[in-house]
C-alpha cells in the first residue's frame, strides 16, 4: 500500500546494487503541514559507517525512526538489509539493532535482567542467553554493576548498557541516534572506541550526530541533512573540498600598516575591526610559498600569519546556515 507511491526514479535504473545495507529513494515524511523529510536518497554500502549530520530538527531522528520501522514514511521507498521497510518490517527488524536518542533500558530491573530480557526476545536458549549476557556486560565494563537496578546507572553506563542490549541479537546493521549526546568527553571517546570496534566486526553503522568532529572521526561517508533535504554527501574530505573555506589570515597591530596592506592586496577579504586580511588558499605548501613571495615583493609585513584549512564546521555552517554564506569569516569556537 504505501509503496504504491513510488516516485519516478531519478537514477535511471531504479534498483540499487545488492551490496547496499540501507538504501532509500525519495523518502518523505511530514507531520501536519510541516515537512520533515523532503525526498531523501541514500545508498549505504554494507560494512561502512554512515553519518547523518544536521542541526536540531533537521529530521535526523525521523529518518532513523523510518528506517528502523518505528514509524512509516509518507512517500518514497526504503530497503534495509534487503527488505522493504514498509512491506516487510519484520525482515528489517530481524537484521537491525537500534539505540535511540533516549535511553531504552528498563530502569526498574537490573542491567543483567535487561540483557536477559533481550536474550529471551531474541529466542536464545537459557544457556546462550546467560553466556551472551556475561560476555557483553564484561565487554562494556558493566559486570560490577550487573546486579544493580539500571535506574541507578550514570549516563555513560546507561548508554553502554543500551548499546550492549542492542548487540544481543548480533545485528548486521546498527542505528545509533546521537550516541554521544549528553556524555562527558571521556565517555564520548569510549563510545567512539565501541563504534570502531563494531565496524571492525563488519557491522554497518548508521549514526546521527550534531558533532562534526564525531562524523569526521567515525564515518566513511557523511550526509548533511538540512531542512529535510540532503544538502551535501560524501567523505569528510569531499565535503571539505566543497567549501572554499581555506584561507591565510594576516593580522596587523598598526592601523596604518593594515591600511597599506589592504590597498595593496585587493583580492583579500578585509576585516577592518580586527585589522586582519584573509587571502583564499587551499593550504598547500606550494600556494603558501607563492603567497609569501607575493607578500614580500609587495612589501607587506604582517604581525601574525595563520593558515586556516576548511574543517567540517565550515562545511556545516555554509550548508546549513540561513543564507548560505560560505565566505563569511568565522572563528572556530573551541
Amino acid at each position: 500500500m504505501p509503496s504504491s507511491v513510488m516516485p519516478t526514479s531519478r537514477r535511471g535504473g531504479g534498483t540499487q546494487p545488492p551490496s547496499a545495507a540501507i538504501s532509500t529513494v525519495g523518502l518523505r515524511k511530514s507531520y501536519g503541514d510541516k515537512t520533515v523529510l523532503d525526498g531523501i536518497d541514500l545508498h549505504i554500502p554494507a560494512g561502512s559507517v554512515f553519518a547523518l549530520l544536521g542541526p536540531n530538527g533537521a529530521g535526523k531522528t525521523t529518518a532513523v525512526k523510518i528506517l528502523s520501522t518505528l514509524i512509516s514514511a509518507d512517500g518514497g521507498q526504503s530497503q534495509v538489509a534487503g527488505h522493504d521497510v514498509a512491506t516487510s518490517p519484520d525482515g528489517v527488524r530481524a537484521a537491525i539493532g537500534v539505540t535511540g536518542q533516549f535511553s531504552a533500558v528498563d530502569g526498574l530491573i537490573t542491567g543483567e535482567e535487561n540483557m536477559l530480557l533481550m536474550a529471551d526476545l531474541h529466542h536464545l536458549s537459557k544457556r546462550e542467553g546467560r553466556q551472551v549476557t556475561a560476555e557483553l556486560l564484561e565487554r562494556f565494563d558493566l559486570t560490577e554493576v550487573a546486579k544493580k537496578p539500571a535506574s541507578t546507572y550514570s549516563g555513560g553506563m546507561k548508554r553502554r548498557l543500551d548499546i550492549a542490549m542492542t548487540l544481543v541479537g548480533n545485528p548486521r546493521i546498527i542505528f545509533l541516534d546521537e550516541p554521544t549526546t549528553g556524555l562527558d568527553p571521556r565517555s564520548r571517546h569510549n563510545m567512539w572506541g565501541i563504534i570502531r570496534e563494531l565496524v571492525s566486526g563488519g557491522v554497518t553503522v548508521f549514526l546521527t550526530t550534531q558533532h562534526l568532529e564525531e562524523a569526521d572521526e567515525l564515518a566513511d561517508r557523511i550526509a548533511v541533512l538540512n531542512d529535510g533535504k540532503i544538502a551535501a554527501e560524501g567523505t569528510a574530505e569531499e565535503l571539505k573540498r566543497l567549501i572554499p573555506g581555506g584561507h591565510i589570515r594576516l593580522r596587523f597591530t598598526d592601523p596604518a600598516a593594515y591600511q597599506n596592506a589592504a590597498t595593496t592586496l585587493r583580492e583579500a577579504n578585509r576585516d577592518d575591526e580586527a585589522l586582519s586580511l584573509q587571502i583564499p588558499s587551499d593550504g598547500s605548501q606550494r600556494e603558501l610559498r607563492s603567497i609569501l613571495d607575493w607578500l614580500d615583493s609587495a612589501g607587506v609585513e604582517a604581525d601574525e600569519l595563520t593558515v586556516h584549512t576548511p574543517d567540517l564546521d565550515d562545511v556545516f555552517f555554509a550548508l546549513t546556515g540561513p543564507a548560505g554564506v560560505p565566505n563569511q569569516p568565522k572563528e572556530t569556537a573551541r
Partner: protein
Amino acid sequence: MSALSLAVRDSNTMLRRNLLHAWRYPSGTLNLLLTPIMMLLLFVYIFGDVMSAGIGGGGADRSEYIAYIVPGILMMTIGSTVIGAAVYISMDMTEGLIARFRTMAVYRGSVIIGHVVGSVLQSIASVVLVGAVGVAIGFRSTDATVLEWLAAFGLLALFALALTWIAVGMGMASPNPEAAGNAAMPLILLPLISSAFIPADTMPGWFQPIAEYQPFTPAIETLRGLLLGTEIGHNGWLAVAWCVGLTVLGYFWSMSLFNRDPK
C-alpha cells in the same frame, strides 16, 4: 517455531518482565488496595448502622451488611487495581524501551498482552488479599459449592480481564501517566453508583436503570448469588455479556492504539 508459539513465548517474556516489576516494587500494588480496604472498613464500622438498616427491608445487623458489601468490595478491588494498569502502561509507553521492542522482531501484541495478563494476575492476588480482610472481619459464604466457588473465581478473573483491557486502552490513549490515572478514575467510581454498598432498588427511580445495568451491578449481583445464594436471575448473562463486550472493545482499541505510529 510456529507463529503461535512465538507469540506465546514473547508474551510470556513480557509477562515475566511485568511480574518482576510488581515483585520488586510491591508498594505500587499494595497502595491500590488501600482504597477498597478503607471503603470496606468505613462502610462497615463507621456508616454500618445506617447502611445495614437499608438492606433486607431494614433491621439487618452488622454481619448481614458485611455479607452484603464484601462481594461489591471485591469487584471494586479489581477496579482499583486496573487503574494501576492504566498508569503503568502509559508510563511504559513513554519509555524508550517500548520503542526498542517495536524495532525488534518480536510478536507485536506481546507488550500489551504481558501488561494485561500481569494486571489480571495482580487483580486476582489483590482480590485474595482484600477477601482475606473480609473474612477477618466476619465474611462467610453461605453453602457455596466447590462449583460455585470456581464460578466465583472465574467471574472475578473474567471481570478483571475486561476492566484491564479497557484500562489499558485508556492508558494508551492518554498522553502521560497522570492523564491515564484520571481517565481510569471511573473504574473505581462506578462501584459507588452500583449495588456494591446499597441495593439499586433503594436509589431514586430515574437513576435505577443506570445503577442496574452498568457493568459493576450485574457482576456484583452474580458474585453475591454464587457466594451467598441470592437470586442471580438475568444478572449472570448480563455480567458475562459486559465482560466479553468490554474485553473485545478494549482489545481492539488497545491494539489499534499500539499499531499507530508512536509520537
